[in-house]
């Protein structure tokens, strides 16, 4: 079911699916913000792709080269479950100083739209606003777009692919210890 031009002829079935997917994304945000990192890992398929390019300042007619390329260039993230699991395990050591003591993080997810949907797989686009505060006054905002592919595994939605487009050139934060 292609739903990207669905405005004006939205069906009840579509609305229910959007709500279901929104509910999944909000649940995911809660797990991260409640520091349930291992439970969050369980939301990812074993073959998940997690990609966040860096973004260049380029000429108008050169926009296709604005983002660094997945699987080819250096990126902020371009990894699978193994590395994401290492990131979680690192936080759980209690001696990962960049997250010890833990930061206070809130994930806001909005503008949720289904781009493609079949009973087994959906492609969903959204905006994110992630607020991080740590120690006394250290504060960061990460704002951008996300494109996720969710897949049904044993009757549950799982994240099979996540593309994170952060709206920054020079990274304004000193590190990327948050999950997007």
């Amino acid at each position, binding site marked *: 079911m292609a739903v990207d031009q669905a405005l004006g002829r939205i069906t009840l079935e579509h609305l229910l699916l959007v709500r279901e997917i929104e509910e999944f994304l909000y649940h995911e945000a809660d797990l991260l913000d409640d520091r349930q990192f291992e439970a969050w890992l369980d939301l990812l398929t074993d073959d998940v792709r997690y990609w*966040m*390019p*860096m973004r*260049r*300042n*380029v*000429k108008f007619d*050169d926009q296709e080269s604005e983002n*660094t*390329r997945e*699987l*080819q*260039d*250096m*990126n*902020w*993230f*371009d*990894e699978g479950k193994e*590395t994401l699991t*290492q*990131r979680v*395990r*690192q936080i759980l*050591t209690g*001696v*990962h*100083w*960049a997250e010890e003591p833990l930061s206070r993080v809130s994930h806001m997810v909005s503008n949720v739209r289904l781009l493609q949907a079949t009973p087994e797989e959906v492609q969903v686009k959204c905006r994110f606003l992630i607020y991080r505060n740590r*120690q006394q006054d*250290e504060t960061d905002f990460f704002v951008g777009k996300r494109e996720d592919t969710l897949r049904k595994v044993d009757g549950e939605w799982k994240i099979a692919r996540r593309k994170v487009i952060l709206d920054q*050139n*020079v*990274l*304004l*934060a*000193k*590190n*990327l*210890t948050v999950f997007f």
Partner: protein
Amino acid sequence: MAQNHRAVSRLQPWVDVENGLVSRDIFVDKSIYQQEQEQVFARVWLFIGHESQVPNPGDYFTSFMGEESVILTRDAQHQLHVFLNTCTHRGMKVCRYDEGNTTVFTCPYHGWSFACDGQLVGVPHDRAAYRGQLDRSQWGLVEVAQMATYKGTVWATWDADAPPLMTYLGDMRRYLDVLLDARDGSKGGSEILGGIQKWYMPSNWKFAAENFAGDGYHNISHRSVDLVGIGPSGRGRRDWERDDTLALNISIPEGGHSAMGFLQKEDYPFVPTYQNSPIVEEYARYCYEERQKRLGNDARMIGRVGTTFPNMSFLSRQPRSIAVWQPRGVLKTEAWRWYLVDKNAPEEVKDTLRHYYMRYSGPGGLTEQDDMENWNYASEASRGVIARRYPYNYQMGMGFEGRRDDWPGQISEGISEQNQRGFYKRWAELMAGTSWEALTAKAAKKGHNHGR
């Protein structure tokens, strides 16, 4: 209990190498930061980029020299140039793109345009506005005083009196070779992976520069990564070849440069690396054997880290990269990171390295995230008037410096802060306004006293 003998009132001079003390003022004081821009960054050779970023005529890459935005270009004659990125008419940046290809840089303000060799080639309404009085040859882009390359790396300085790059680097070249030569020991042959990481750090730039200069003491910083095991063989931070090797801290006093390395024993057997990927492991073994053949005794040097004074740091082995710490205010640094691979390496090797680099380095890297936390709050906790009464301790390994016959520089074995002392000694000499002539004479005298 306060130890009053350390509570000197504002250490003067800032850097007391004889006693291994450095004032906190130089990390937190705004006026010292301003002097630094003039005395250090406007004088020394600075790293700009890599030739492989601008292979064709018209290619450009915008970089920084300290706080100054500059453009690296390759002109129609294939010649490299480094220009100040500012219109000579009213100052607007003539290039606001990170990289690309062009025939001219046209200023968006009034439209003056400049060719890739810096010449002013276009002036709107030239005849009507300037009545034929504008001498275009005098108003080209401002070019650096000197530009030079070394094995693909591009460097420049604003000081016409600075010694040539090869003299400035001096014996440091031997240690840069460990970074820039191909893993099989053949000369040059490295290229940059696409995508330069750029991020801000809330700390003084010298924290990063001195850490890379030779801090072999901060293992606890990375305890979490050692526990998790992110190295290319699934263990620790990187492949371990240290058993039976000698840790060397190398200071090049003539230039204030530093490096660290491990020296393998003669006839040391091959230690498998990159064991998580058979193809890369095989490539590493091939490179090891070729390196032994090409370099002989010199192949025993395994590179670690280093800082070419003042702010070009590197990891010469794992993960192989160049870092530049651009000052952005006394408590702010813009870090840039270039990642290197052998140009001729198989694609699978490049890809495995790319993943490892991202996993280890920069703001997303599991290892370096913790470095930045330390530099951040070391800066923060050094700002107060009370904190500033207490200089940092750089006394580790004082009096145990020596020389070797096989590798140049002043060398300390094991863990030492010799390199940091060398870094701050050169910093202090430049801050005092010491001329290049005097610095060179001093270096010659020192070389004589401590000759082999």
